[in-house]
């Protein structure tokens, strides 16, 4: 079939189309999951563990069962009796029960569920459940956990989702559930100037403002579920496995998400409501409170012992990183984070001698999982602090030092994969130019000291993944797009429409994206890791091209000419030879002989990789594409109070091609603002396994008052050869270098290198005192 070069007077890709449903969002009329009309549901509340690590010896549910409004009380043991080991879910390891049985592994772990008429009744009754424990010794920190007992799990249970973990099945007496090693050259063989530090990032929380919600009920012999999830295809498979049902008897519906950032993916509330609905044959719903949301998932706390060595020419010759991710009581996707972030631990630099040891470690804390950046911000915190310090110790400008050592197009990254469309240099130059790096500035005003800092970030997109798209072209010329990518604020509904519109010469508002529903929309691995623009975007582009080919064929038939003679434009289809033309609407009406008909085209886009060598961690193609970004900052530190004030923050990300520049800028800015929180104040605090700041009164988030005086988002476009119109994703790019950029500026201002996040006033004052 021919492909016809089409371009019309209207363009879609590259345009600042308005966000789909913008007005409904502003007025609050858009319906999120908890606003959706579903059948009347009973409310679920859970009773939670008060112990970090203990055997459950007895559960007394009698008082809860007798409480007003209570319909049923279900324990983990009840569900285990029904489902056996199928109760254990999780993307990497089947290690997490939706209700604990036998043993609890963190304070706050759900043990029993109350189903009642009304959330208040359910919550009150859940308090009446009494659990007896036989306490076990807990392990709270990664450094203790890697040494040996106590063990959080008796043995490792790799899931069937990630086949490459199966060799770990049954491994005992360890808290390290995964280890990735990258070995290239020999770092101990080189000499020069070396800097080394121990770095720490605490666990943090995503805090999407929409609370997690899930409702489930049986529809005959089927299970239906509506949930706040960014992974409907994954959840369908996970629930089908749990309930032992064929995929066509599980339906997962979604709604627009009120933010997620990784919090609402894989198994969260969904296994619990599904198990309750299925075993009790009741329609049930659960809305997490904010305090409960903090217990559902976190970002990995992470320790990195790192070093970097440069030779006499200022070339980086060696890099080492010992990375320990604290994954809490359940692995979730921690093993993937451990490998996919470990492989960029050396940073975006040409280094011949590299050793990375990256481990995923169980502790008795809430489970850590994916969070914007997928573990890469934690290792970037280390490599960008090291690169900065090394430059300073060499007496060199940190920007020039980075420029000289940076990976460029065609270079081989330390992990063994060639670089393409990863414009570190352009990103670095853009941000430093924006803050006028190199021009003099007033260094001190009273107690205020001023500094500038820069950092670069590098990340691999999730590979391999699979996306599908279906385009339905309606007889009137409008289109519906069926995909399972979730719009959680990043704007995917708008840009996917733009990609389809570009191919089909449609205008703004002509393409509607159908809400993900596994009965309707095709498989999509996940909406995460900034993968959708590239992966789903390519599936959409291919499906739209298939549609264009179908239209061309219909027009060729109609005009009696060959297909190569036909061109699709915004006015319809035209024959170059006969100058005959026909609108899409007329063409489809002519073809079907009726109004309101639909023409359907579909496409798949899958990516592949070459798994890294288990010995040395190298792979010639570890990823489909790279993200490159940079941040530069000018700030003041008040030496009397320890407070940091950001005067100018510039962030840049290479997006290949901006499908919608306005949304790209919002993603660049939004990730940077989230990164300000991680740099300066945002952290989960635990005391003996108990979270002590799990409310929004105590957990600080960036407000409008924390905005820099000036924030400059900069789009870098280094087209990717296989991206849709050259595009790649962007959502994580600028959170990655943010914290080290700020810390490097604090170092510039004060002379103090701080190696623990966040840079609270207390921590800065303590560091200043120790320095003097």
């Amino acid at each position, binding site marked *: 079939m021919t492909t016809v070069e089409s371009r019309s007077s209207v363009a879609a890709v590259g345009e600042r189309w308005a966000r789909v449903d*913008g007005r409904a969002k502003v007025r*609050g009329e858009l319906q999120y999951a908890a606003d959706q009309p579903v059948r009347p549901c009973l409310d679920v509340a859970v009773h939670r563990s008060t112990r970090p690590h203990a055997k459950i010896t007895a559960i007394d549910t009698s008082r809860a069962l007798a409480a007003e409004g209570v319909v049923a009380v279900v324990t983990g043991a009840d569900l285990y009796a029904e489902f056996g080991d199928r109760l254990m879910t999780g993307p990497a390891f089947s290690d997490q029960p939706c209700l604990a049985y036998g043993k609890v592994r963190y304070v706050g772990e759900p043990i029993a569920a109350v189903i009642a008429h009304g959330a208040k009744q359910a919550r009150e009754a859940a308090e009446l459940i009494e659990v007896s424990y036989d306490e076990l010794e807990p392990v709270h920190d990664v450094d203790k956990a890697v040494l040996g007992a106590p063990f959080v799990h008796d043995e490792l249970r790799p899931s069937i989702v990630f086949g490459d973990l199966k060799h770990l099945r049954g491994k005992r007496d360890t808290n390290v559930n995964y280890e990735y090693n990258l070995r290239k050259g020999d770092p101990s063989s080189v000499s020069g100037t070396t800097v080394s530090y121990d770095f720490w990032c605490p666990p943090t929380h995503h805090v*999407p*403002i929409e*609370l997690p919600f899930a409702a489930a009920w049986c529809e005959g012999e089927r299970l239906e579920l509506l949930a706040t999830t960014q992974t409907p295809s994954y959840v369908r498979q996970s629930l089908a496995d749990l309930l032992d049902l064929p995929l066509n008897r599980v339906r997962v519906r979604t709604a627009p998400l009120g933010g997620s*950032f990784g919090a609402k993916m894989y198994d969260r509330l969904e296994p619990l409501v599904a198990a309750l609905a299925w075993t009790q044959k009741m329609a049930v719903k659960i809305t997490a409170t*904010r305090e409960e949301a903090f217990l559902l998932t976190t970002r990995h706390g992470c320790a990195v012992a790192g070093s970097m060595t440069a030779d006499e020419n200022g070339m980086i010759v060696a890099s080492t990183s010992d990375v320990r991710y604290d994954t809490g009581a359940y692995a979730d996707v921690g093993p993937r984070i451990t490998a996919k972030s470990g492989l960029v631990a050396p940073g975006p630099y040409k280094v011949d001698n590299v050793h990375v040891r990256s481990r995923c470690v169980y502790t008795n804390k809430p489970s850590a999982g994916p969070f914007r950046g997928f573990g890469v911000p934690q290792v970037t915190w280390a490599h960008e602090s090291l690169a900065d310090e090394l430059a300073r110790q060499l007496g060199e400008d940190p920007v020039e030092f980075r420029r000289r050592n940076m990976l460029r197009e065609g270079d081989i990254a330390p992990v063994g994969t060639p670089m393409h469309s990863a414009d570190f240099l352009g990103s670095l130059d853009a941000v430093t130019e924006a803050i006028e790096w190199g021009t003099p500035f007033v260094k001190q005003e009273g107690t205020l000291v001023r500094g500038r800092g820069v950092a670069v970030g590098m990340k691999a997109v999730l590979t391999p993944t699979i996306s599908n798209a279906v385009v339905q072209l309606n007889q009137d010329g409008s289109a519906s797009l069926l995909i399972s990518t979730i719009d959680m604020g990043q704007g995917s509904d708008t840009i996917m429409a733009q990609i389809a519109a570009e191919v089909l010469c449609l205008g703004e508002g002509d393409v509607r994206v159908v809400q993900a529903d596994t009965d309707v929309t095709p498989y999509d691995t996940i909406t995460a890791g900034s993968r959708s623009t590239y992966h789903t975007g390519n599936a959409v582009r291919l499906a739209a091209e298939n549609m264009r080919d179908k239209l061309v064929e219909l027009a060729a038939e109609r005009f009696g000419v060959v297909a190569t003679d036909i061109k699709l434009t915004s006015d319809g289809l035209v024959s170059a030879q006969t100058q005959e033309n026909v609108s899409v609407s007329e063409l489809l009406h002519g073809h079907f002989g009726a109004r309101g008909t639909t023409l359907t085209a579909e496409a798949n886009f899958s990516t592949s990789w070459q798994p890294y060598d288990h010995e040395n961690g190298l792979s010639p193609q570890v990823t489909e594409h790279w993200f490159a970004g940079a941040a530069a900052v000018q700030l003041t530190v008040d030496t009397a109070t320890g407070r940091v004030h950001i005067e100018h923050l510039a962030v840049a990300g290479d997006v290949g091609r901006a499908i919608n520049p306005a949304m790209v800028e919002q993603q660049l800015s939004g990730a940077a603002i989230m990164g300000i929180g991680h740099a300066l104040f945002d952290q989960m605090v635990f005391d003996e396994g108990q979270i002590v700041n799990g*409310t929004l009164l105590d957990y600080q988030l960036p407000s*409008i008052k924390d905005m820099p005086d000036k924030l400059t988002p900069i789009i870098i476009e280094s087209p990717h050869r296989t991206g849709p119109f050259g595009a790649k994703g962007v959502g994580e790019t600028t959170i990655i270098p943010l914290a080290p950029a700020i810390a490097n500026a604090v170092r510039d201002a004060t002379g103090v290198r701080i190696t623990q996040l966040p840079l609270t006033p207390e921590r800065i004052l303590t560091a200043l005192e120790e320095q003097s």
Partner: protein
Amino acid sequence: MREIELKVNGLRRKLGVADDELLLDVLRREFGTTSVREGCGVGACGACTALVSGKSVSTCLSRAARFDGAEITTADGLPADDEVVDEFVANRAMQCGYCIPGFVMMAHELLGENPQPTDEEVVEHLEGNICRCGTYSEIHAAIKAAATRRAAKNERATA
């Protein structure tokens, strides 16, 4: 239970509420207002903001029974030509959109009290609302634009 009367977005209704029922839950259940939303439950994020006689209230902290006779406005009840809404839309002041109606109501309160706020006054007023997507610059710009537009409209009205 007690009977109270509320006027929500111009609609007056008598209804029974439990003594400890939150205004947030009553607005959502009885009036179908989708724009007030629980985000934190402790008055710290602003997603549940409504205006009571023009003053912002965290409805997740407020017992409905105390609002007998009150006139309440929520974002989904604003008129179709509301200039604050228009400017939020025009300035792209929404990403996931969940928190935005709370900001819209805070903007209404601010402009009601202070028709031409300075940048600092805008920041001070919005400090208690959290937008996790980080749409603060756009929200700020939208409020300034709405202030300008409202001033021009008032000028025309008095001319």
